[in-house]
């Protein structure tokens, strides 16, 4: 089994760290993982993206032109990556950042209002974990307990007091996610 994801949004939204936590979670489950970021100047305020691959076998290319799952957190990312989702693949977006809705009919589309919900419920800092919750609800590619273990590994010890808040955001994200029917 192999999952090829692209996660894209503005720099600072936690796109790269969301991918990292997913990769750590995969590692905890004994999977092969690859995490490849866009590392250009666009990370500073512009559009950032990261490719994450979880697989049961040796991973070939970390550079892809189509994905099983695209997670997009802003309009430029939707414009760029909607067309890169494989047929019957999954597109997931945060509705607060989207002005033009996706138009493809040959993929499954999911929406969540994570940004506004996270800020309204005091979870603004863990907005990306809320999105991750949504992703995992749609495709449970790693177990929640391993995400929490992965989270623990990927953030410094001084921030471990925020682990419960992260878990709360993941669970809330799982409630928020909705499939859009065309």
């Amino acid at each position, binding site marked *: 089994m192999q999952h090829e994801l692209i996660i894209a949004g503005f720099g600072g939204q936690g796109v790269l760290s969301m991918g*990292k936590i997913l990769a750590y979670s995969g590692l905890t489950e004994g999977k*092969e*993982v690859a995490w490849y970021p866009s590392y250009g100047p666009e990370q500073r305020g512009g559009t950032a993206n990261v490719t994450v691959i979880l697989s049961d076998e040796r991973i070939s*290319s970390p550079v892809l032109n189509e994905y099983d799952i695209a997670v997009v957190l802003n309009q430029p990312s939707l414009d760029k990556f909607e067309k890169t989702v494989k047929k019957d693949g999954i597109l997931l977006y945060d509705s607060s950042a989207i002005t033009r809705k996706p138009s493809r009919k040959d993929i499954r589309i999911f929406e969540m209002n994570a940004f506004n919900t996270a800020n309204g419920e005091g979870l603004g800092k863990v907005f990306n974990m809320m999105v991750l919750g949504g992703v995992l609800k749609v495709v449970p590619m790693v177990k929640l307990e391993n995400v929490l273990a992965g989270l623990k590994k*990927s953030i410094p010890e001084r921030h471990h007091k925020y682990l419960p808040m992260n878990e709360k955001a993941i669970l809330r994200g799982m409630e928020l996610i909705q499939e859009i029917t065309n």
Partner: protein
Amino acid sequence: MRQGFTCLLNNSMAEIKLLKGNEAIAHAAIRYGADGYFGYPITPQSEIMETLMDEQPWETTGMVVLQAESEVAAINMVYGGAACGKRVLTSSSSPGISLKQEGISYLAGTELPALIVNVMRGGPGLGTIQPSQADYFQAVKGGGHGDYRVITLAPASVQEMADYVALGFDLAFKYRNPAMILADGVIGQLMEKVELAPQKLRRTEAEIRKECPWAALGRPAGRQPNIHTSLELDSTVWEQYNIRFQAKYKAIEANEVRYEELYCDDAGYLIVAFGAAARISQKVVEIARKEGIKVGLFRPITLWPYPSKRLNSYKNKVKSILTVELNAGQMVEDVKLAVDCQIPVTYFGRMGGIIPTPQEVYNALKKIVNP
């Protein structure tokens, strides 16, 4: 430099970690028992020195980590450390590696072992910070002046980034020759699972004296001074040195060729690629095999010495060869030489920091399958 010591070593076990290629280089250097790192920051390899600074190996193994005032200073610190028999390394990216070329030529001319890491970005000039493989010629055909060779290892995974630190040092000391890890921005920035080797102790000065009798560590009574220089005004003497260097290079070519073959047994076509281009090509091979195209991937691991003999054996087995490179077509020349130009060899690549997608490479492959 400080002596190796044993306290505070808590890395005695092999360990699985999730690391960037650059971070793996840093961890592997500490665990190998390297004595010193000298560098100057440049994207996309700055995590090497950042990780070393984070790990603070001077508190544990006694390894020196120093940000030099420039790339030229860093390679000359390496030159000095190497002359003392120390295991020393430097790293940079393309423009910085150009600056180090004089030092690398001097290391070769004095037959000193050192490890140089190049995480390539798009050139020429300051170019771009995005991944490239355009320093192939520079690494394997000279780079600096004079008739010399640098043992050149091309990692295609984070695991290999870690492994080739040890291999690079081993080969450098075995042959008293500089060795280079020629990686690209993709492998430097990519994060994967990696198993780190157990911590080795740094060698004591007594051990260095025994293993490297040539090391300039102070002259004991009754021994001639160990002098390291690449200057010799008597050309008859210097030609003899050159003859000895060439004999050493022949030995390296005979003994140290490394490569990987995937799906090559029944292949009618071959893709030849290294580093990130090999990873992309592996995906292309998987896609093509599903479409019924019998294509294999030949991945040179040592770019010098080049696996020419092994590639030559394919000239009667495959119809044609496609080389895939993140440059304008450099390694393709060595592939043509390897097969004596007896079968068609074509090139596909992108330049200036653009990474070809699997689809683009697949399209290029289709062109040679259905010309």
